[in-house]
């Protein structure tokens, strides 16, 4: 297990370095100049040059990259003040430390993703198991067609409809907002309820279908039949034997989904006007804000890589044939 962790974490580290280098290069290859944006309407070449100089954009790319990476480890000093390690730089746009901005936005994204995850896993796996257990019946067909309908919907379509129905016309609920759980647990819960459910509905569909088909496949496995031949009851065999095997494909997509969500649930955040990592990413790219873009990219990539390690460890936990190492 330790070997596995060391090996995986070190390879994750290499991947992060590659991603950062790649993002850096892409940024400079893009034909847009961040100085133009910062300079405003009455801009002269000289003014732009001063801005470039201030942002450090006139140094060679390699040097800029080196400064950036060194900052992550050692911290850096900027004209706006000292930036402690891990320093992801200062935003071109807001002059705020990128790390602080991300730490500020992270709780919302974490709340949104993890809350949604609990809902869509419970609903999705539950519906999938029920459909598999009652394969071919009306229940199965209803659940299957419902999941097909929802999986073909989009958050930006469903979101406004739900908002319109529950918030604007009836006033049953308040507009989605984020309050830290430490300040007001109830407000945190009610504020995110609508985004959770809308997001969960769409993910649920996918998990229902996956869990159903994977479960049906497992129920046809020979070892499941053997367990029945030993006299074990149908529910026992269903949960102890078949379910365990059916979790492997689910864990796979769950790892990918969770990693992506933690890196910023862009559509959900935009739809419900919530300021999380996803929104931050969109702002960073539209403003050609190199340090912010780098920061958001690296955080997202870190989540995805970490989820990957967890998924692989989960495989080994579920299936003893999988060896870590």
């Amino acid at each position, binding site marked *: 297990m330790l070997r596995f962790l060391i090996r995986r974490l070190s390879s994750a580290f290499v991947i992060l370095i590659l991603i950062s280098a790649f993002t850096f290069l892409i940024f400079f290859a893009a034909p847009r100049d961040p100085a133009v944006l910062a300079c405003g309407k009455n801009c002269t070449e000289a003014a732009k040059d001063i801005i470039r100089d201030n942002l450090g954009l006139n140094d060679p790319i390699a040097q800029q990259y080196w400064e950036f990476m060194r900052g992550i480890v050692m911290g850096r000093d900027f004209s706006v003040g000292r930036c402690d390690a891990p320093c992801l730089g200062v935003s071109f746009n807001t002059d705020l430390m990128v790390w602080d901005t991300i730490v500020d936005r992270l709780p919302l994204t974490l709340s949104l993703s993890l809350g949604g995850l609990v809902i869509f896993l419970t609903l999705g796996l539950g519906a999938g198991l029920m459909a598999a257990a009652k394969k071919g019946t009306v229940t199965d067909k209803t659940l299957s067609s419902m999941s097909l309908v929802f999986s073909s919907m989009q958050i930006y379509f469903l979101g406004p409809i739900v908002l319109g129905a529950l918030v604007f016309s009836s006033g049953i609920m308040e507009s989605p907002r984020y309050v830290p759980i430490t300040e007001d647990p109830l407000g945190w819960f009610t504020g995110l309820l609508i985004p959770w459910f809308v997001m969960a509905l769409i993910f649920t569909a996918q998990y229902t279908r996956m869990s159903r088909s994977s479960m049906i496949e497992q129920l046809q496995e*020979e*070892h499941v039949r053997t367990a029945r*031949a*030993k*006299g*074990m009851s149908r529910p026992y065999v269903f949960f102890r*034997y078949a379910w365990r095997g059916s979790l492997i494909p689910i864990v796979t997509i769950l790892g990918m989904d969770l990693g992506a969500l933690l890196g910023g649930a862009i559509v959900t955040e935009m739809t419900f006007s919530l300021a999380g990592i996803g929104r931050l990413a969109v702002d960073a790219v539209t403003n050609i804000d190199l340090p912010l873009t780098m920061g958001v990219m690296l955080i997202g990539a870190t989540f995805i890589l970490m989820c990957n390690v967890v998924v692989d460890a989960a495989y080994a936990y579920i299936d003893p044939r999988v060896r870590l190492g």
Partner: protein
Amino acid sequence: MTTLTKTEDAPAPTGRDAFLSVRDLRVQFSTEDGIVKAVDGLSFDLERGRTLGIVGESGSGKSVTNLTVLGLHNPKTTTVTGEIVLDGQELTGAREKTLEKLRGNKMAMIFQDPLTALSPFYTIGRQIMEPFRKHTGASKKEARERAIEMLTKVGIPHPKTRVDDYPHQFSGGMRQRAMIAMALVCDPDLIIADEPTTALDVTVQAQILDLLKDLQQEFGSSIIFITHDLGVIAEMADDIMVMYGGRAVERGSAAEVLRAPRHPYTWGLLSSMPSLSGNVHEKLMPIPGNPPSLLNPPSGCAFHPRCGFRSEVGGTLCTTDRPELGAGRASACHLTAEQKQTLFVEQIKPRLG
């Protein structure tokens, strides 16, 4: 089957003394293409402590029959009619809870491929302990003792440590031994072994077959042994039933069926198998064509499209009338007893070496 009647037209066996008695069993699956008659009017008896060998090719209904005895068919798509009586208890139409109490306890099954038939997720020990705890109410500790005892019995080296191994840590032969230990853990009266050695190597197969025979002696169980291999049947069975297209076509003691077979299909099986002592220059005599479709079985005798002796019967009997299987030593074929005798002695036996 102690008393073997010589006449082929006697009524179906009464099954008074039989431990397992199957009467006119019919198993049908509904599929998208239509109704599959997997088993179509099958009757047989098995006495305590005896081994019945069931021989047949794929689609002969041999495996379905035995899954039905255990009640492991899918009740939604399968229709089962007829009688299955195990030690005086009727199993067709029995409640699921009743069957669960019998499975793994009074009747147990050994499957073909121990790699897929054992769960990869749980240790060998746990899989052996499960039925024991369920059926005897033993504690975890007692069940573990029992599992180790069973593993010792079937010849797993270092059973005390290997009881905690997972199936993938066992070799093929060891896995099948563990499967046998699992089937025997509650000392069942009936063991159904479905091609238990087909996936194994020949030297391992020999070990496992002997092991089963020795354990049967010790436990006094009855065995239904399903296989396509007549050689294996010859080693294992006291009585043999040959199945074709969901029906029994020949029945008798092992010696009778192997030394003086009476059905053209049995002849075909014997002469399509090369032996270790046969004449190598004699060509094999395969059965032409393919096994019948169970969706749309041939009219009359299901074997007639592949049978080389139809002309001996003459007329259209083979294509219109389905021959019935009599009681005791019998074969379901329109040939007369004399014809069967002469044809076998003159045409088949000389080829078999």
